[in-house]
């Protein structure tokens, strides 16, 4: 009996550090955010927290800026699935192929991931500057003046510029996810397929893609949740502007809390994002389960 208690105590004490961390840094902030989302609070220590029910949620769901930011998030997801996914998968095929120079390719493609987001943002802000940026200079030199734009200040175009920079930055990281899936496919599967006459594009369609399902699943979940919480690159490149045209939910949440001190409203945006993230992740899991 004593031994059993002793053993349980050891388990509890061993688990405690991780549990304390989990409670302090994840559960408590989440619960506090949910609590604040039903209240008004000016974000000043000791100032009253007033219960307002669903008012913050109604205000958020009625505001144009929230839906504009959600639309930009949808653009991020479209970019993620239509550009980042094929690009990363293509790069993964390249670095797992038997071509020469794959070691160099691996390093080169992974390089942007190693740069800090602020550095990447600054590089691209300068490259895209309409007055002295390299992009417009190249277009002008090539006689394509008509294509030279004010990239980060034109509504509609600016968010796509940020999205493309995001894809450029994260292609190397996602390439590793797909590459890990591709190298785990046993070589005898390819050999058997080859004997059956399945090579080239057919091999890609019937072997590589279906057997990389787990990688696609991981990518999809990371992409959806990442797109919903996109903040740093947008903030560093456009700060959500001009005139809120490149705002995403996370920048909106930040502004509500830290610019306007509406912590309740900001928390309700956070909770909506959390719910949306969970729903989309579950849906994706179900989708991939059905495929299985």
């Amino acid at each position, binding site marked *: 009996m004593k031994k059993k208690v*002793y*053993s349980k*105590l*050891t388990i509890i*004490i*061993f688990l*405690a*550090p991780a549990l*304390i*961390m989990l409670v*302090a840094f994840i559960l408590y902030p989440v619960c506090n955010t949910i609590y604040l989302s039903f209240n*008004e609070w*000016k*974000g*000043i*220590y*000791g*100032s009253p927290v007033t219960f*307002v029910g669903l008012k*913050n949620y109604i*205000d958020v769901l009625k*505001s*144009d800026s929230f839906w504009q930011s959600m639309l930009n998030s949808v653009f991020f997801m479209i970019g993620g699935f239509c550009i980042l996914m094929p690009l990363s998968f293509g790069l993964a095929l390249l670095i797992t192929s038997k071509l020469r120079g794959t070691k160099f390719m691996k390093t080169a493609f992974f390089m942007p991931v190693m740069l800090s987001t602020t550095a990447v943002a600054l590089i691209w802000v300068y490259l895209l*500057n*309409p*007055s002295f940026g390299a992009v417009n200079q190249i277009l002008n030199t090539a006689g394509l003046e008509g294509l030279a734009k*004010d990239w*980060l*200040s*034109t*509504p509609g175009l600016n968010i796509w510029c940020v999205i493309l920079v995001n894809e450029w930055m994260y292609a190397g990281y996602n390439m590793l996810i797909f590459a890990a899936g591709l190298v785990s496919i046993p070589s005898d599967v390819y050999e058997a397929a080859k004997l059956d006459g399945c090579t080239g594009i057919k091999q890609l369609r019937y072997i590589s893609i279906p057997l990389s399902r787990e990688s696609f699943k991981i990518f999809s979940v990371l992409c959806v949740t990442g797109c919903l919480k996109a903040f740093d690159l947008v903030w560093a490149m456009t700060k959500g*502007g*001009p*005139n*809120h*045209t490149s705002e995403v939910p996370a920048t909106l949440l930040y*502004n*509500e809390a*830290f*610019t*306007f*001190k*509406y*912590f*309740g*409203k900001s928390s309700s945006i956070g909770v909506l994002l959390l719910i949306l993230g969970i729903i989309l992740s579950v849906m994706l899991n179900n989708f991939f389960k059905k495929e299985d």
Partner: protein
Amino acid sequence: MKRKRITALGLASVMLMSVTLSACGSGADESRSSDGNIVITVASRYATDVEDEKYYRQKVEEFNKMDNGITVEMDNVATESDYLDKLRTAFANGDTPNVFLEYGGSRTLDYLEADALVDLKPYLEENDSEWYNTFYESLWDQTQYDGYDGIYAVPFKSYMVLLFYNKDLFEQAGLEAPVTIDDMLDACAKFKEMGIKPFQVGEKDNFRFGHFNNNLIIKTLGVDAVDELANRELSYDSDEMINTYKIIEEMVANDYFGENILDTDQYQESEMFLQGDVAMHWDGTWFIPNYLYGSDIYDSIGVVPFPYGDEKYASQAQGGSSDMWYVSKLNKSDEEIEASVEFLKYITSPEYYTGLDEVAQTIYPVKYEKSDNAPENPLLDEALDIYEQVTDMRTDVQNYDPDSRMLDAVRSSLQGLAMGNSAEECAEQIMETVNAGGGE
């Protein structure tokens, strides 16, 4: 086996203790230094190498060397948005600086409503209002709030928005400095015709159009309109207000504000004006010490009041206290508050400004004796002449608004004009925020 288990238990306990202790932090008295001095934290934006900010830091160091039992720890963050974010976070967790810089308006009203600010009136009125009387009377307006008895800040810097112009380019164009808004628009047309940029605006920092619109409002509708906008007697989508947006819309459409204005920031804008290729530039009086004084272009620059739209309001202007010091009482002891006031008295003394006048001359909020070592600065003298003729001033129009999001809402909507939005769309966008009633 038993020993192993005891070792494991011991290790686990150490891990648990380290996690718990690291979360607890230090329980030492953080308001006292090792030599027994009271330590106060002063937050400001004075982190750059412009002369007045270097002078501020030097004076704080001198204060620390004085035998007064107070040690000041500076927390200087230059970028406005970063500074304000840090300050808000400090207020959210209750660990605020003792003294902090702010710009007044509804943002500080929130702190006042939360009972986080010290009423400085009793200190200002000590010894027959000795401290109070060192400041210009007109600047106290911004430190007081309706419904609250007391004075909650002391002015540190004051300013006025003026129109700077390149005399050489105006002479080349055969033009006089603009007096009215129509003169300014005519000058813009003439400069554009000559291939000279009338303005080059850095609207990436959206306060630029914000200030321009403030001046259009004050100079065409008068300072009363500022108060009427705040209490909603005058609507942001009224014809009078739409006319002010229309001036900006027209100037954008005619490229009078320069190229790629949404990708140009305020620093680039100032530098471009200093290069001598731009005819006009509106800015605060701080532009003289921070950019013009000592520059090659100094002798070619003239200064006039911002042009008026209605002659009745020619002597009114955007200006007032820009930077103000506030004292926090959130989790602060009486002796910390006393030390904070002591520091403020030092940093706003006439002696401080006499010294400052030698290194960075501009308009100050305090009456001081001019130093014999102060250099000649004819441009500032011109600005001071204009300042003396001003009958009434207001700072940023939305600073008087009870809704703290109006400043951002108006500036963002005005930024929309630079993207090609119409004056009506701009008004409509502002009204969305007005009608939302601030959200909370």
